[in-house]
Structures are given as C-alpha cells and as structure tokens.
C-alpha cells in the first residue's frame, strides 16, 4: 500500500522514532481502517439503494463521512477507556485518522465495489500493510542514523531514496501492471 | 542464537618464536655493572627458611614480576594473607615473536622450579601449575608435559590467552599467577643473594639479523640491544612488548630496558595498504574475546555519536588488539575503543572518589 500507492506517507510516518509512538500509530490506523471500511460499505450500500444516479465523485466525498465518524468513535473510546493516555494519544490519533491511508483504503474498496466481508478484509489488510511499512521505515531510520550520509541527503531525501528502493522491490513483486 | 557461546573467541596467530626460542640465552649487560648483594642470611636450604624470610628476601632483592610490573613481595604477601591454594607459573607467551618466559623456563628449569617451591612455601599453597601456550606448532624444542613433578598445563591456542588462564584451567579464586622470570630471580636471590639487575628480553622482528633471548642488564637502551643482535634493515617501527599490545618507541636512544620489558621487536612493513573504509565484513565481531561489537563501537566513536551510544559495554575492552589485527580495512579499531574505554573508567573512578 505505502510503497505501491505512496498513501499515508506523512511527516508523522517518516518521523516515527520511538517504538511506543509506532505502536500507538499502527494500532489507531488499524482501528480506523477496520471501522471505516465497514461504515464505508454501509454508505455505499445506501447510495446503491436510494440514489444510484450519484456520480462517483459524490460517492467518494460522502465516504469521507465514514472517516469522520470512525475518528470520533475512536477518540471517544480512548477518552473513556484510558483517559490518562489521552494527551499522548490525541496528536498521533488524529494524524492516523486523517492520513490518506484510511481514506485511500475506503476509496480503493469503493472503486473495486467490494462487498462487506471483502471490504472489511481489505481494510484490515491495508492497516496491517501500513503497520509493516512503518516498521520498515523505523528500522530504516535506525540504520540511516549511523551511516555517514552525504550532507545534502541528510534527513528526508535519504528516507525518500530508501522508500524508493523498497518500492522498486515491491514493483518487482507486483510486476508489469502498474498500480495507480 | 549464538552458535558457540562458551567457546573462547580470538585469532590463531602465526607464532614466529623460532629461532629465538631454540637458541641458548646469552648474557648481555654493561661491563661496568657489578653484581649487588643483599645483606640477609641466604643460601640456607628452603626447608629451614621461614616464609617471612623468603618474602623479605624478595623485597630486598627488588624483584619485579614481569607480567604486571608489580613487586613480587607484595604479590606474595597478599597471596599469603589470602591463604591461596594454588600457584600458577605463567610461561605463557601468547603473542608472536615473544618467548622471554618460555625460553628461560626451558633453559633454566632448575632455578625456576626452586623459585616456584620458594613461592609456594612463602604463600602456603599446595597445588601448582606451569602454564604454557598450546599453539606452538612451529617451535623446534618440545615442551615436556611434566617438569620435575610440576604439571605443565597448555592454554588454548587462540590469542588472547593471557587474560583467560583462570577460565581455561577452571580455577576459582583465590590463586596467584607468577611470572617465570621473577621466580628465577627469587631463587637466585635465595641462593646467592643477588639483587635483580637484569631481565629476560626477546629480540626479534623482521629487521633483526639473528633473533635471540637475551638476559639484558636493566637500564641499557634499545640501540645497544638491537645492535647486539644485529639489524638487517633499518626498521620503520621498534616495539617494546609484544607485537599485539606493545608500545612503539619514538627514540631508541632514550628508551631503556625495564624489568617489565619482555621483548624488543623491530619491524619494517609497507604502509601503503591502508586507508580503507569499513566494509562491514563482521570479522571483528566474531573474534572479539570480550564479545563486544567493535564495528558498531568504532562507527559510533568515529562519527562522534556518543550521545546515542547504545549499551555496547566498551568498558569491558581488554585492549588486546584482536579486532584491529583481523580487520581487512586496517582500521584502528582497538586504539579508538580502548581510548574511549579508558575515559569511561576514569569517569567511573571520579564518580567513586566524589560521591557528592
């Protein structure tokens, strides 16, 4: 997902340095993907029932509701269940919620017209992929810290190159058909 | 996941102990130097000498243990105080070229054994070993398994073995490790009352014409010693001590032979094959006897990344130089790490001294 569609690559994803932040981030992304994919399926179902004449763009926009709803849901859950972590969670959560990964997952499953179970599976899979990707990025961070990278490439550029190589590998796995 | 956790790590070094070892030991000292004597009743048989007298003789004779440069009588006193059971005679020249302990042990074995008995009487120990190096493949003389009833233990072949004696013999504290030469001088002192005025030195290296073990008078400079054995070529580096841990000399005129000088080596090598970058072959990691990670340590230290240095236990470094030896990129690994570990130790001492 990240390496093939470059979704969900934000500064937070890049700058994940501590394992705990990574854990929180990945957990919330997973949650968001799962819940919002279900909600998204509901919204698509409503559309197909009541106004099938809607253009794809309107559908896509309305899918955004799912993101918002599930975000509020997660926020309330966190604030109810473990309020003392809230200050620590809140920043990460919002980035996780409104990163392109979640919404992109929704849109992809909408484009593929998946049914409920499939879209759920797709959401969970996308979340797991996101987690894996951020773990890869984390170990990339760790290793690149030690290298004496040229001055110009320090920071973001070398991370971009690193991700570029990984996506080259993924391209080798996917093959000729370019994902867009 | 480590495959051989118990096995000692290190490197097998080519031992260039020949021909120095098989030649007989020559005396070499200033003609002016006259033998000094101690004013104590000496020459009595060992059975009638009290342990205190032996220690007293050792002190008067100013005998220094060549292993660690400490006074023999102090070691004996502490050993007697701690009522140790075992005396380990260290004839373990684990560094290449150096044979200034094994040579005297084989040549002057009677004196060495007398010294050993005296030391045992002084400390009240029952058991005793003589420790020699196992990896002596290219030595012409054969080392016996028993020397006058004293068992000769062979310590495993990988360098460094010096610091691993106790582990190899499976000994437990307390035991005392004494150098052969100091025992020889002890026996001389007890017999003739001689003060230690010389020490055994191996003179070798690829620039030395005929390498030998010399008994060199203290206070002579390296030039005399090297010329005594003849220089085939003028060396690029002259070392006192072993080739792995020795100190390279700046001025051979002003450097004098001390009781702890065990070897004088003169080398000439080409410096061109240097200045590589670490290629991360991981050889240093697999040879470090302390199971450190020299590659990572060096990378951190050379990049000045001390702030984010993970716990790599640099203070455990014994400065054996194995990592630098094996490194195909010829990096100064051991020097960098040992400097850093020195600073660490200093900091610890400071913390201990001022707890405020």
């Amino acid at each position, binding site marked *: 997902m990240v390496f093939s569609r470059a979704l969900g690559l934000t500064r937070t994803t890049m700058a994940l340095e501590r394992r705990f932040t990574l854990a929180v981030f990945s957990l919330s992304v997973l949650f968001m993907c799962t819940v919002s994919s279900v909600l998204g399926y509901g919204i698509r179902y409503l559309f197909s029932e009541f106004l099938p004449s809607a253009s794809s763009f309107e559908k896509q926009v309305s899918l955004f509701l799912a993101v918002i709803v599930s975000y509020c849901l997660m926020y309330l859950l966190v604030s109810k269940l473990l309020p003392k972590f809230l200050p620590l969670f809140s920043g990460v959560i919002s980035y996780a919620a409104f990163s392109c990964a979640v919404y992109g997952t929704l849109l992809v499953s909408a484009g593929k017209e998946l049914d409920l179970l499939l879209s759920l599976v797709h959401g969970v899979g996308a979340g797991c992929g996101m987690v894996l990707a951020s773990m890869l990025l984390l170990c990339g961070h760790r290793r*690149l810290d030690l290298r004496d990278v040229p001055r110009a490439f320090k920071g973001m550029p070398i991370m971009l190159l690193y991700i570029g190589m990984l996506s080259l590998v993924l391209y*080798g796995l996917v093959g000729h058909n370019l994902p867009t | *996941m480590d495959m051989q956790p118990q096995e000692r790590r290190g490197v097998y070094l080519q031992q260039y102990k020949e021909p120095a070892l098989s030649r007989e030991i020559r005396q070499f000292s200033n003609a002016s130097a006259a033998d000094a004597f101690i004013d104590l009743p000496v020459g009595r048989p060992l059975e009638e000498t009290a342990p205190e007298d032996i220690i007293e003789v050792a002190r008067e004779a100013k005998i220094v243990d060549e292993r660690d440069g400490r006074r023999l009588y102090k070691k004996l006193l502490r050993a007697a105080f701690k009522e140790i059971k075992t005396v380990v005679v260290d004839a373990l020249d684990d560094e290449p070229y150096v044979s200034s302990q094994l040579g005297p042990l084989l040549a002057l074995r009677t004196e060495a054994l007398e010294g050993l008995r005296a030391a045992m009487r002084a400390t009240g120990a029952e058991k005793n070993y003589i420790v020699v190096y196992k990896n002596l493949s290219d030595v012409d003389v054969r080392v016996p398994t028993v020397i006058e009833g004293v068992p000769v233990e062979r310590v495993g072949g990988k360098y460094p073995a010096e*610091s691993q004696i106790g582990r190899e013999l499976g000994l437990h504290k307390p035991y005392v490790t004494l150098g052969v030469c100091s025992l020889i001088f002890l026996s001389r002192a007890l017999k003739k009352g001689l003060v230690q005025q010389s020490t055994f030195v191996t003179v070798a290296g690829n620039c030395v014409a005929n390498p030998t073990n010399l008994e060199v008078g203290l206070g002579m400079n390296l030039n005399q010693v090297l010329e005594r054995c003849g220089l085939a070529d003028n060396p690029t580096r002259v070392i006192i001590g072993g080739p792995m841990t020795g100190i390279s000399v700046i001025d051979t005129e002003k450097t004098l032979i001390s009781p702890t000088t065990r070897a004088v080596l003169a080398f000439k090598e080409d410096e061109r094959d240097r200045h590589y970058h670490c290629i991360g072959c*991981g050889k240093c990691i697999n040879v470090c006897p302390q199971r450190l990670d020299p590659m990572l340590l060096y990378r951190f230290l050379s990049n000045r990344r001390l702030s984010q240095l993970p716990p790599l236990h640099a203070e455990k470094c014994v400065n054996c130089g194995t990592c630098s030896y094996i490194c195909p990129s010829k990096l100064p690994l051991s020097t960098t790490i040992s400097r850093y570990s020195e600073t660490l130790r200093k900091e610890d001492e400071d913390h201990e001294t001022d707890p405020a």
Partner: protein
Amino acid sequence: MKLIPRDAPHIRHSDSNKTMMGDMILTLLPFYLIGVCFYGLRVVLLMLLSAAVCWLADLVCCLVRGRRFNVRDLSSLVTGLLIPLLMPATISYGVVVLACIFAIVVVKHPFGGIGENLFNPAAGGVAFAIACWPEKMFAYPNIFATIPLGGVSGVATVSSTAYTLKMGGVPGADLGDVLLGLTPGPVGAASILVVLACLLYLAYRRTVPLIQPVCFLAAAALMAFLFPRADIGRTYSVAYELMSGSLVFGGVFLLSDPVTSPKRFGARALYGLTAGVLVMVFRRFGGFEQGVTFAVLLMNAVSEEYDRLVQYLAARAERERRAPHETCEE
C-alpha cells in the same frame, strides 16, 4: 634512531579489502570466459563497458563528495563485473550503462558510498534494468548463436527455463544441459557447478561466510520441493528451480556481499534461510521470472534487524547462565 609512533597492534592480518575484492573479481572472470565460448566477444565488450562505467561513476561521485578516491578500492569494479552477468548477452549497451550509473549514483553513493550502502549496488542496478526494460532483459539468445558486436536486432531470442517454470509449463531442456548451463539464460547463469566451485574457493579464502549461501540454497531447494510450480516430480522441480536462471549465482555473489549482510553467525543463517524462501516467493508470485535481485534488495533492508535480534538473544542466554569467568589478578 628516531621513529614515528604507531598504534598497536603492530602486525596485521594478510587479508585486506583489496585481496577480498580481488578474490571476487577472480571468481567472476571464469563466467566471462564461459560467456565468450557461448556468445562470442560481445560479452567481453559488455564487461569492459560496465566495469569502466562503474569505476568512472565511483570516481566522479567521490570527487563530488569531496572524498579522496582510494585507487585500491575495487568494489566498484566488482559491481561492474556483476551487472552484465545477470543480463542476457544480447542486452543493448545503453541498458548496461544506465544500470551501472543507477547502481553507483543512486544505490551506492547517496547512502554514503563503499561500506555504508544499505542495498547491494549490483542488485539495485539490475532490478532497475528489469523494472524498466523487462522485454529486453528476459529475451535470451540461443547458445552458440553468433551475436554481432553492434546492433542485436536480427538475433533470434528465446525464453529461458525460468520463464517456462514461471508459466507453469514443463521445461523442455534436458537436465544434463541445464546442469552444464547449456540452456539460454543470463550470461552468468552458466553452470551451477562453476558457481559452486567459486563459492568453495571464496569460502576457503574466508571472503564469503559459507553458512549464508548454504542456508539460502537449502531454503530455496526446500521451497521448490514442497511447492513445485510445474507438474514435474518434486526432485525434478528442485533441480530445475535451482539450475534455472541466476538463482544460485545471485545467492552466492549478490546475497553474500559483506557490506549488506548481517555480521553474526546465527544472523547469517537466518538471513540465508529467509532469503531462500523469499526468492521462491518472488519467483512464484512475482511479476518477473527472475526474483533474486528483488529478494536480495528486500533482505538488505532488514539485515541489521537480524543482527539486533541475535545479539539480544545471545545477551539473554548469557544472562541466564552467568558463570564466574573473571580471571584473578589478585
């Protein structure tokens, strides 16, 4: 006499980077010899071209970065010799040049040059070439076909055994031919026997740790045995999988690059095993018939994690059985 003080130790091991890289080059040259026998002099031209391009690119990058260029550093030459061996003999010169430039300028130097590169440059360059010109990369000439030095438009090309396996078909090539490398394929995929001989030499010279390629091959063979892709016998599947394409070659020469592989014994074993499994996964599900380079790149990305894991486990084991090992210097 007056001397310059030097750091201990005063004797060094005879191996150096130069000798290690020299061994690599020495073991790579026989493949070119075989290539000349099979495909004619064009192979030599490819070799010279790519070696020269890599060396020059390395030189230029060093100068741009303001590093002093070490002439004894042969690693770029090794990269340059590796790249054409993973390509068909009919590959156009432009592809080789671009692959070499990508390998040095993108994969090697931005990460810090020799010793610091996270990814194997040769694997990166070849993967780039495959991703950009798959149709050129997988069209192999017949053995003993006469290939002109210049344009190769007229040369009839066929698909390799690996492609047949990828399509799930039964490879028609005789097993003996495959064993001797007498089937169309990359220049370097000459004969598994030659590769293994080179591996033994490298292991004897301690340039390559033997454990890593062995685990790699074992895992690949196991995968081939468990999940044969074509409906041929399991043992035949193993034979064809291992001998087709550049699997063994990549496992020996790309995977065991000291810079990008883990350092500890156990880590190397695990690394090899995972890489072997991964290669077969890439071959089966991947988009291309040749999965070694991609698998190697992916493994390079995580090699240090293996080291960390092994170190952690070793430390824990050490903590569990803590024996009094301190020597007594009273």
